[in-house]
């Protein structure tokens, strides 16, 4: 309910209502905010890793709008670097407790993962169907894996992203018209999913190698040989099948290690 139905409904409404303003991409952040409110409340004291994810997730669309004023070639690399730095900040308290070698290893790993997702999702920001399919799988894959990895909160954050991206995709499938996308959709989605994955590895039981199939989702959505001329429902279905296979891989890897969630 909190992680699936509510964010799906809110994203559906937002995607439709904000369409004339070309702000349908905001659907993801609005849906995520609703889930955060219902699951844990919007509070930033004390500033734990999970709360830093919420803070960054809610700030990301504002940053995306501001960055939209610039269209420099280096913008994508800058965003990826900022995504990597965000991962370090989110995990800072955990990293500080590690031995130096582990601190650098884990720090570099999570920065690379978050930066990678931001970079590749940014490459999809002008392709709404591919971005929606990637968002659907990235959200559900991160959420499912985090849920099996013993963190229901991070799990619901991820599933909320997947549900929101699913609603965004559904509007395009039903109307056969592309919605506006942009960084306002891609940046928060990549950032929240990436950071939730990192925190689930460091703070819960998500195995680090489960991040590889998740990292493959945006590139898969980018390069999957699906004709842009095909009907949008067909494009969505084919792209989602390819990306959801990656998400299923991540969830399966976590389930093998951690077993079923302790409900």
């Amino acid at each position, binding site marked *: 309910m909190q992680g699936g139905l509510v964010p799906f409904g809110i994203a559906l409404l937002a995607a439709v209502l904000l369409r004339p303003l070309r702000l349908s991409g905001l659907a993801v952040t609005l849906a995520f905010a609703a889930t955060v409110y219902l*699951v844990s409340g919007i509070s930033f*004291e004390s500033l*734990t890793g999970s709360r830093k994810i919420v803070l960054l997730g809610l700030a990301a669309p504002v940053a995306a709008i501001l960055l939209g004023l610039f269209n420099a070639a280096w913008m994508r690399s800058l965003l990826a670097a900022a995504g990597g730095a965000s991962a370090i900040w989110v995990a800072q308290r955990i990293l500080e407790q590690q031995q130096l070698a582990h601190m650098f290893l884990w720090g570099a790993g999570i920065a690379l993962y978050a930066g990678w997702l931001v970079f590749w999702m940014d490459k999809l920001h002008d392709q709404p169907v591919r971005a929606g399919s990637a968002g659907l799988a990235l959200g559900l894959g991160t959420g499912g894996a985090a849920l099996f990895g013993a*963190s229901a*909160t991070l799990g619901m954050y991820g599933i909320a992203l997947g549900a929101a991206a699913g609603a965004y995709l559904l509007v395009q499938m039903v109307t056969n018209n592309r919605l506006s996308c942009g960084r306002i959709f891609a940046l928060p989605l990549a950032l929240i999913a990436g950071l939730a994955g990192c925190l689930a590895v*460091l703070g819960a039981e998500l195995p680090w190698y489960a991040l590889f199939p998740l990292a493959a989702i945006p590139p898969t959505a980018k390069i999957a040989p699906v004709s842009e001329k095909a009907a949008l429902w067909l494009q969505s279905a084919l792209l989602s099948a390819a990306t959801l296979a990656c998400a299923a891989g991540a969830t399966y890897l976590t389930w093998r290690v951690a077993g079923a969630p302790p409900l």
Partner: protein
Amino acid sequence: MLKRNALAVLLAALPYAAHASDSYTVDPAHTFTHFTINHLGFSTMHGRFDKSSGKVTLDPAAKNGSIEISIESGSVSTGFAKRDDHLKSPDFFNAAEFPSITFKSSKIKFKGDVPASVEGDLTLLGVTKPVTLTVTEFNCGANPMNKKYECGAGAVAQIKRSDFGMKAFLPAVGDDIKLEFEIEAYKD
């Protein structure tokens, strides 16, 4: 003049020398923190933290003292490993980010020569709140096994986990947590 100042300093120091606190080190093998919490309205679940450390000072004559206890949040144990993993996760005790739960006393109230309650600050998940422990048991003496002098105590407290930002699964999993401390500490 110098002699008079020295005498004044000596006299001022006398009460402290006469009421010097005894310091104790917590015995981790006999010190545990238990907790109980309502599960979905059906039953009361029990758990405990297996590892803790700390220092105690006591001066029954002056009726004061101090307690500092540090509990390893990653040592939480409920008899079911999968649930323990969940309790260590960011949903609950967030052990990776906050490896310690601490209690630091600010005032010990005595009833006669025996501590009756301990006021202090509990820090959980980076949030510090005042908590009062009610002392249910207090005994001192030589340990019959190793002959060392020690004190032991039991104490209880009630907290709301939401006060410390632990809000996962509320209200299905209860908000009220009863804490029970069993402490033994050897005289240094």
